[in-house]
């Protein structure tokens, strides 16, 4: 596991999950879990790889690149807000900001950049922010996740962890009920993916949505499926959840944007 600044508990949590899934799926390499449920079914993986040859999200990457490179009214641009001019940095998001003591997702950073430059923030449910983050993810493809949990971030990390393991909604399900306890089993025709690898491929083009969407959209959908009232995209609870889940991906290769059923 990379990331020297990962607290001992977070590292242990990640190692425990890796060990759990190594035992559950002895024939699946750790790195293959970046492909989600496709790591668990070769026939579905073949279909998925063929879709990825001509991916339906490709035009959105182009649109994201155009938006990313469009100057703000003050002449500045997104590149000025990020290290390495915003290219190849997605694997270090979300990150913990010690000044605000908040988890900063890439979407939040994009809007923060806009506001710093006098632009209005983009809607977290809109196409523009999804396209921009899709382009930024694309430039990070092949990089390994390296999310740190520095001193002061433990609370946010643990809140995300608690969310993941807590039952909610009228159906009384936790994220872990499906993606830990029942990982590899089927819900109707679908195979439930493993917890590790859940944050590698966002934004994702889900065929159910017929468009790209971010990981918070998926959180909201999962919550609604179990009968809970979904939280707002980029709410503190969802950002902490994304933080926990991405730390669990540390060492795994970023492969977004991607497609999922």
């Amino acid at each position, binding site marked *: 596991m990379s990331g020297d600044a990962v607290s001992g508990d977070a590292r242990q949590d990640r190692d425990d999950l890796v*060990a759990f899934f190594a035992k559950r799926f002895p024939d699946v390499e750790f790195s293959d879990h970046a492909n989600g449920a496709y790591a668990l079914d070769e026939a579905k993986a073949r279909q998925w790889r063929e879709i990825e040859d001509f991916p339906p999200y490709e035009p959105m990457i182009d649109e994201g690149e155009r938006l990313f490179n469009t100057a703000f009214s003050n002449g500045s641009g997104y590149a000025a807000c990020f290290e390495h001019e915003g290219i190849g940095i997605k694997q270090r998001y979300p990150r913990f900001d010690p000044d605000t003591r908040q988890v900063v997702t890439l979407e939040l950073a994009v809007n923060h950049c806009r506001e710093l430059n006098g632009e209005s923030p983009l809607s977290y449910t809109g196409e523009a922010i999804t396209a921009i983050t899709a382009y930024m993810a694309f430039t990070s493809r092949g990089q390994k996740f390296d999310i740190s949990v520095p001193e002061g971030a433990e609370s946010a990390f643990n809140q995300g962890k608690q969310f993941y393991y807590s039952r909610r909604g009228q159906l009384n399900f936790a994220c872990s009920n499906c993606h830990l306890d029942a990982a590899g089993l089927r819900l109707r025709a679908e195979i439930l993916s493993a917890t590790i690898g859940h944050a590698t491929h966002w934004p994702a083009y889900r065929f159910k949505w017929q468009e790209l969407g971010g990981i918070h959209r998926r959180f909201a959908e999962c919550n609604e499926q179990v009968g809970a009232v979904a939280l707002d995209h980029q709410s503190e609870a969802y950002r902490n959840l994304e933080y926990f889940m991405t730390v669990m991906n540390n060492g795994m290769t970023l492969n977004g944007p991607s497609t999922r059923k």
Partner: protein
Amino acid sequence: MRMAWLLLILACAGPMEISGSADARTPEAHVAHNESVQTVIQTARQKFQQALKLDYAWRVTADLISEAEKRMAAGDTQGAHDAATRALLSAEASILQAEHESRVWRERLPKTATSNVKK
């Protein structure tokens, strides 16, 4: 497991019967009954807001409150009472779920973990 059964029972609970028939009530009793239903709706709303603050609200609660309000507006006091009672029960169950989960969530950590006996 007991918690799961409790929630399942509450979630599946059908409309609650209340004694007497609305048609047989005196005008005074009818007004009192309407006020009682409004109180149940209001209490359900308050509990729902409480669950929202905990990030633990259930969708069905909002649906049932809405249904109770619509039935009340249509003069269906009995139907409004049934829906409001179910809304209140589901809101209370969601708050109970939040309290319960804050205590037991660590039990779901992977069993291979050596670190899970602590905390």
